[in-house]
């Protein structure tokens, strides 16, 4: 049939995604701290998303043009992270850092 793809083993992919979801739930409670747990969770999420895109959305079997279209938002999202990072981490505007009005010296 025109346009029909090779079909990967969908049940194997299903079990892979199910197992990775369980691993995610375990990682949340690991005692490694927010940075390591966060990195692991982001890695697992990106891995699961890649599996869905490559096998369920058949990107692995598509042309390079569709692959490039699919990669465009990823590039924009990465750019966005670098745009937001400086504001989030290097600018002193956390709500707890704002001094309460009562502590300010009274003006006469």
């Amino acid at each position, binding site marked *: 049939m025109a*346009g029909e793809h090779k079909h990967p083993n969908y049940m194997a992919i*299903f079990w892979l995604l199910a197992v990775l979801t369980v691993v995610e739930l375990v990682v949340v409670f690991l005692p490694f701290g927010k940075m390591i747990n966060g990195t692991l969770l982001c890695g697992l999420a990106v891995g699961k998303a890649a599996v*869905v895109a490559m096998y*369920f959305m058949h990107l692995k079997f598509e042309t390079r043009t569709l692959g490039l279209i699919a990669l465009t938002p990823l590039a924009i999202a990465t750019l966005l992270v670098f745009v937001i990072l400086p504001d989030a981490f290097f600018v002193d505007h956390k709500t707890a850092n704002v001094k309460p009005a009562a502590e300010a010296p009274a003006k006469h």
Partner: protein
Amino acid sequence: MSQAASHAAPHAVEPAESPLTPESWGKLGMWIFLAGDAVGFGTLLAAYGGMRATSADWPNPYEVLGINLTAVMTFLLICSSVTMVKALEWLGKGDRGKCRMFLFFTALGGAIFVSLQAYEWTHLIHRGLHIDGNPWGAALFGTSFFIVTGFHGMHVTGGVIYLLSVIGVVSRRPDPAASYNVVEIVGLYWHFVDLVWIMVFTFMYLL
């Protein structure tokens, strides 16, 4: 000379799978739409990360929201992605009946997902999570939660309607080959909804 011509010939003919052949226009269109939609979700999640990083009293999401129900919802969407690929696989084998059955299961999975989300929202609203404040910390926690999960929920709702309409298309066209492209394109949308939920689940609930 003839040898050179035979070498050049494959390059002169566009491959059958190229998105620039008419049978793939719909697929190309859906991919462009999904790329735009992904930028929308990416912006929402990046804004969420920015707000969270600049807030000193952001609640711990998995303690406030609970992840048991959402883990079930995640599993449900993964299952619905499998039923979606099965629908396409059966249509490829020429079995319209099985294709419609799996499309219906996919839509059912989506409908159950949205119902569980409605239940979760109701439960959290009763506990005090509102769009303009909550008892646990930063007011923007509730704002971002409802906007991101709501935006995704609207996509799932739209997907269920889309799937039901595609069941109608498959029913009306006696030749399975005539509906293959339509089913493949709705599949792309549905898997994208699953893919986005994987990111939303991680960023909004687990991190």
